């Protein structure tokens, strides 16, 4: 049974390394999904696509920068 637990832990680790980073991604996906649903004509154009990608890129840069700062770990 120990190896099953190890595999489950490994699978979880596939998706989550830094919990704050994973949560930020999920929150951003939810925000964009709600925006597209409620503001359909405004948010669902190519600007919506750009904002969606921009948010994810910003989360990535912020997370790596946070790791690099002193006394942030």
């Amino acid at each position: 049974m120990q190896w099953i637990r190890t595999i489950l832990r490994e699978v979880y680790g596939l998706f989550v390394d830094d919990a704050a980073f994973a949560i930020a991604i999920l929150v951003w996906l939810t925000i964009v999904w709600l925006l597209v649903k409620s503001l359909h004509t405004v948010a669902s154009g190519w600007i919506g696509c750009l904002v969606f990608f921009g948010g994810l890129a910003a989360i990535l840069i912020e997370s790596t920068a946070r790791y690099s700062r002193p006394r942030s770990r």
Partner: protein
Amino acid sequence: MWTHSGMTILASFLASMVECVEALTVILAVGSVRGWSGVLTGAASAVGVLLAIIAILGRTLTLIPLQLLQGVVGTLLLLFGLRWLRKAILRAAALIPLHDEAAAYAKNTAAMQKLGAVQGWDAIAFGAAFQITMLEGTEVIFIVIAIGAGGAGLLLPASLGALAALVVVTCLGIALHRPLARVPENLLKMVVGVLLSAFGTFWVGEAIGLPWPGHDFAIGALIAGYLVASQVAIVVCRNLREQREVRG
């Protein structure tokens, strides 16, 4: 469609290759110390179990509506791809150490030598090879499903990419008889992270109703976007690390 299939094969091949190299390192370490029969039986048994899982999951996936599948799988792919990309950025900025296959090989070899001589059926070698193949193989299955489930007919190219990685790494392992220490793992992880993040972003966007300009060609733009973002992140991290070092 060909662009999509080609990208799928490449992403699956590169991501699976990283996992196969990690499994090969442990298998070679165990086999070189304790002999090959137990190790090869263990690895082959795990591959059998993994193939059965693929057969069951593959059939189940065809029953789920594509949009729902794209949403769930795209989210997992984003978490997975961005996690790899984040780690590759931190390694490129020298904030976390590079993965060293030679060191992992030495560590596993030493651990196996401590366990004593082999007598008859080697359960330790079987167990070690079975466990590492199951571990890394489960990751490969997730990669194949995550990459292949995003569009109709992509599961086959994703499986072919993973199979090609397994064949290439196995052949190299047999030829070299030592861990593939010279594989530029961080560069591979950076490329895979960029590809998977681009696929994930595209599929989640489609699932939530965002109309990508240029349809499938938007994946190319997303790849370029993530490459730029990762380079920006590396520069920012290096600057912050240097500032930290100057302050002492």
